């Protein structure tokens, strides 16, 4: 399902990140970072909520808006019951849609927001996605202080929150088109190799997007996937070539390998989580678009729809990826 838009614009973005991201290669580019994982709160779950409100407040400030100017707030995160987004939305007087597509939430939010604006149901919409390494570890895996050994293919959930303000009012970057992903399950049961789980979803949505828009991969200055990681990246290159006859060139990159310094930070195969793609896209890619260095970018958020219960019941992990195309207005 590919849609084209002609009156949806990305007005501004904001990024908030944690200590490990602050020490990474993009550390200086985030709007706000914190020296520890608590963000001044008592628990990590509440810290995650604090990151999201910071992200929204900074966004409103940058746009010189107040919450009265916002018609819709769409937000997703990794917590059960989408707690982070719901509890944070309670602090704002803005109509709220909570969403969950794991690490694909960012683009899912942007697609829903864009559709609302395209149809003139909303004029200004905030789309956010958030994750916190420690609250995610506690919920999905082991207690935080438990030193469980990890495989080399493991990715590290990013601590951060990225928000975007979509608007019907023209600005420098427009949302050009999007493709909604289909859920794929290629039989991977290994929770430590999310790259292998998610590559098929990314391959399908990229191939379908290019096919529906009648474009070649070279059309885009950058095709950026969310969090396939060091090894998942290579799996995607080979999978998309073999199954869909699409050759990804040097214009392809993956956020997981950009948010951290894989050589010097203890992150194994790279970053992951709903905040991985927004932190990289909003802090690094958007400025490059504003300066004209990149003109056409395809953001592909990849999500592993993993359920710990289903893993225990020996089912394999399904995945979905969504794609959205941003272009600099001429």
């Amino acid at each position, binding site marked *: 399902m590919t849609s084209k838009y002609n009156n949806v614009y990305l007005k501004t973005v904001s990024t908030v990140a944690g200590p490990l991201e602050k020490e990474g290669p993009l550390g200086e580019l985030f709007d706000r970072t914190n020296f520890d994982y608590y963000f001044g709160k008592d628990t990590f779950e509440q810290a995650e909520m604090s990151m999201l409100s910071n992200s929204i407040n900074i966004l409103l400030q940058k746009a010189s808006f107040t919450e009265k100017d916002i018609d819709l707030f769409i937000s997703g995160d990794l917590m059960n019951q989408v707690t982070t987004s719901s509890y944070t939305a309670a602090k704002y007087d803005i109509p709220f849609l909570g969403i969950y597509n794991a690490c694909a939430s960012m683009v899912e939010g942007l697609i829903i927001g864009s559709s609302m604006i395209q149809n003139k149901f909303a004029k200004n919409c905030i789309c956010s996605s958030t994750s916190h390494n420690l609250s995610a570890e506690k919920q999905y895996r082991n207690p935080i202080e*438990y030193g469980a050994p990890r495989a080399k293919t493991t990715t590290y959930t990013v601590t951060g929150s990225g928000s975007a303000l979509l608007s019907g009012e023209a600005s420098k970057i427009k949302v050009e088109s999007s493709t909604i992903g289909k859920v794929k399950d290629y039989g991977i049961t290994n929770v430590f190799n999310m790259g292998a789980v998610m590559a098929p979803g990314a391959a399908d949505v990229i191939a379908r997007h290019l096919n529906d828009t009648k474009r070649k991969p070279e059309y885009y200055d950058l095709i950026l996937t969310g969090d396939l990681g060091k*090894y998942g990246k290579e799996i995607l290159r080979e999978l998309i070539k073999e199954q869909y006859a699409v050759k990804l060139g040097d214009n392809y990159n993956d956020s997981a390998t950009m948010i951290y310094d894989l050589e010097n930070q203890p992150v194994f195969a790279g970053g992951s989580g709903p905040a991985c793609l927004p932190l990289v896209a909003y802090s690094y890619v958007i400025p490059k678009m504003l300066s004209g260095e990149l003109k056409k970018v395809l953001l592909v958020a990849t999500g592993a729809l993993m359920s710990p219960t289903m893993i225990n019941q020996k089912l394999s992990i399904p995945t979905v990826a969504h794609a959205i195309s941003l272009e600099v207005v001429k």
Partner: protein
Amino acid sequence: MEKTRYEKLVLKYMPKEDSVKNCIVAFLVGGLVGVIGELLINFYSFVLDIPKDESGPYMIVTLVFLACFATALGYFDTLVAKAKAGLIIPITGFAHSMTSAALDYRKEGLVTGIGSNIFKLAGNVILYGVVSAYFFGLIRFIIFGG
């Protein structure tokens, strides 16, 4: 793409784990924990003049305390991640799992938080430890008469 073909593709880009190195490290660290245990028993028996059959429990309490303390201070997880089975298998692993689980839920109440979750990882050990003890005891009784 068929499942088997994709599995092959995934394996092609799978880095090799350092299994041999991990085994050697676990062996040495685990052995070292055993050595420390013996030294503690000797210390309690000969230096503090505690009867030999009591110094065993004292040694266990000491090791458990050290593991819990180091976990609470935040250092033990780094050591366990490096030593792996070497620190997980001895009593230090059991203590570490309970302390780390309790730390996670310290803000969620004594009953609903700590009480409900402290045995999250250790529960397995207790259950299968008791069950296997039962069966081995049964085998010992049948074969050796008790």
